[in-house]
């Protein structure tokens, strides 16, 4: 080897660290202390994991709910009597359902009449079951998309007979499993044969605690006025907003302001918004964990700078500029944090998957949450590395190369 003198001049004398070498020097410090790397990254991992889990669980549950809403249809409206001007309970006109059905954009409508009456297993049973009774007709099956768990529905053939269809909870409370063997229930001491049991109804949980009897039977044989306490109607989905303001006037032309029109699916959607508060709280907690993780990284990096004083001195002697030294430590901190972030993503996705699976949901984590998690980890790490990096760059090279002290 011939050690040729380099020619004089400041040209070509600039210190240069190639980009791959920048990363190689930055990452080299991590591999040499794997245990410490892992422990330091753990703080960030927990923060990212909790945030991903919160976002993942809520979006999976929302996706599930929206799918359910889609299935039930968001074009179901409910018309109820409100209160009169004097604060009394108003009533819907008897023909409200018929009038509403006549609106062209209304595809179907059904009235229900709530009936006072104590439901029991038989006339001698006086336990309170907390169930309500409604009288209605066969259209309700179509309008509310009722699904039977057992037996048959109320229809034109059965609505004149002393028969009942039980909601899912009602059947459970009355300990009626299915319709075989002709079980009966008693309403105010009058016996009704149970011909059907419904499946739980997501859009209308009230219906689950209800016993339905035929409108015709109630009117003709029990002498109950079919004074509708509610009318359910389906509207052309595209005309929903246009139709909605017309309904009060149609249902009760005499006093339209005594009519309340609502959309049951709104209530379900509102549930997701209530959850939002809790979700924000959990996200904030995840944010605190990230912050703590970032402080942990800054802490360990400061220690690392002190421990690696002689390495810094050596690198300065080999020609590293202050910038090279600081970029090495910033890259190391950012990499440390990104490892934590990746770990956290894994934990978060895993936890979400387990929870979603236990709830029977499909896993739905927005891609932005995953990318955001990694970017956040990277940014927090780089930021946490700034102070230790500045400390490292400021070390006096003459001091740093000197052994022990």
């Amino acid at each position, binding site marked *: *080897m*011939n*050690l*040729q*003198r*380099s020619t*004089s*001049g*400041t040209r*070509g*004398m*600039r*210190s*240069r*660290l*190639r980009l*791959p*070498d920048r990363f*190689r*020097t930055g990452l*080299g410090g991590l*591999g*040499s202390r794997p245990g410490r790397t892992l422990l330091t990254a753990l703080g960030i991992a927990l923060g990212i994991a909790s945030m991903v889990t919160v976002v993942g669980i809520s979006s999976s549950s929302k996706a599930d709910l929206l799918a359910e809403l889609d299935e039930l249809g968001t074009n179901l409206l409910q018309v109820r009597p409100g209160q009169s001007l004097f604060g009394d309970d108003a009533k819907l006109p008897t023909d409200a359902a018929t009038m509403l059905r006549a609106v062209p954009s209304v595809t179907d409508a059904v009235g229900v009449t709530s009936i006072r009456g104590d439901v029991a297993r038989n006339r001698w049973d006086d336990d309170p079951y907390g169930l309500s009774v409604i009288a209605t007709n066969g259209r309700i099956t179509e309008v509310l998309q009722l699904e039977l768990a057992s037996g048959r529905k109320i229809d034109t053939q059965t609505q004149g007979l002393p028969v009942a269809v039980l909601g899912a909870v009602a059947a459970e409370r009355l300990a009626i499993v299915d319709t075989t063997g002709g079980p009966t229930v008693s309403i105010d001491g009058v016996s009704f044969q149970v011909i059907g049991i419904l499946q739980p109804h997501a859009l209308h949980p009230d219906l689950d605690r209800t016993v339905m009897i035929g409108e015709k039977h109630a009117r003709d044989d029990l002498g109950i006025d079919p004074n509708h306490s509610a009318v359910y109607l389906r509207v052309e989905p595209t005309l929903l907003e246009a139709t909605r303001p017309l309904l009060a006037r149609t249902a009760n032309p005499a006093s339209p302001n005594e009519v309340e029109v609502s959309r049951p699916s709104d209530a379900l959607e509102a549930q997701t918004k209530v959850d939002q508060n809790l979700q924000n709280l959990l996200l904030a907690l995840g944010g605190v964990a990230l912050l703590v993780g970032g402080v942990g990284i800054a802490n360990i990096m400061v220690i690392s700078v002190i421990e690696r004083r*002689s*390495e810094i*001195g*050596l*690198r*300065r*002697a*080999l*020609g*590293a*500029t*202050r*910038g*090279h030294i600081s970029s090495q430590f910033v890259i190391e901190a950012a990499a440390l944090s990104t490892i934590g972030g990746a770990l956290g993503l894994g934990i978060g996705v895993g936890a979400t998957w387990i929870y979603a699976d236990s709830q029977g949901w499909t896993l739905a984590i927005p891609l932005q949450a995953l990318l955001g998690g990694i970017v956040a980890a990277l940014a927090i790490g780089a930021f946490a590395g700034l102070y230790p990096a500045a400390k490292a760059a400021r070390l*006096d*090279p*003459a001091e740093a*190369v*000197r*052994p022990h002290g």
Partner: protein
Amino acid sequence: MTAALELRDVTREYPGEPPIKALDGVDLRINAGEIVAIVGPSGSGKSTLLNIMGTLDRPTSGEVLIDGIDTASLGDRQRSGLRSSKLGFIFQSFHLLEGARVVDNVANGLLYRGVDRSTRIEKARTALALVGLADRANTRPPKLSGGQRQRVAIARALVGDPTLILADEPTGNLDSRTSDDILRLLEDLNSDHGATIAIITHDLDVAGRVPRQVSVRDGRIEVSA
């Protein structure tokens, strides 16, 4: 001929009451191809001298020329660049990266010159052969003896063909037999390959082996033979 290094009336004061003069009007010229021992007891100012020769420290006054370049006006980037291209350091405590292979330690001598990795490794293998450690290229420093470690450090110092190699107590951590080997290696590098070497030491025996000794005492050059 250009001097590898030239110090002109270099003074270095450390602040205090009164200020401490670590170096006081030092003039020194080391020509290309020379091997010089800078000798002095501890506290004589030779460490300060080394730091200034290596541009790790700046003089309070005076001029420091390396390969004809006045370093007084240079900023951090340029001084770092000058170290990477024109100076090689050998330390008493070797300063090897314990986790990196021997060949990577040597290649680090070229790291801050912007040389690509494969070229660095190639040159590092040549330098390792020169110090007699070609077969240990893939070993890691903890498996090496003190003498072998210092050879690795020497290879790292010379891998970039520097104008001047500064060796700070290169045998300070070694037994006498190993010291002898290391000094012979430095002498060979000087005589056979033309390397310019300044050995800073407190050990008169070490200094006595090279043709020119510069003696430092109380921040001044006493004898410049």
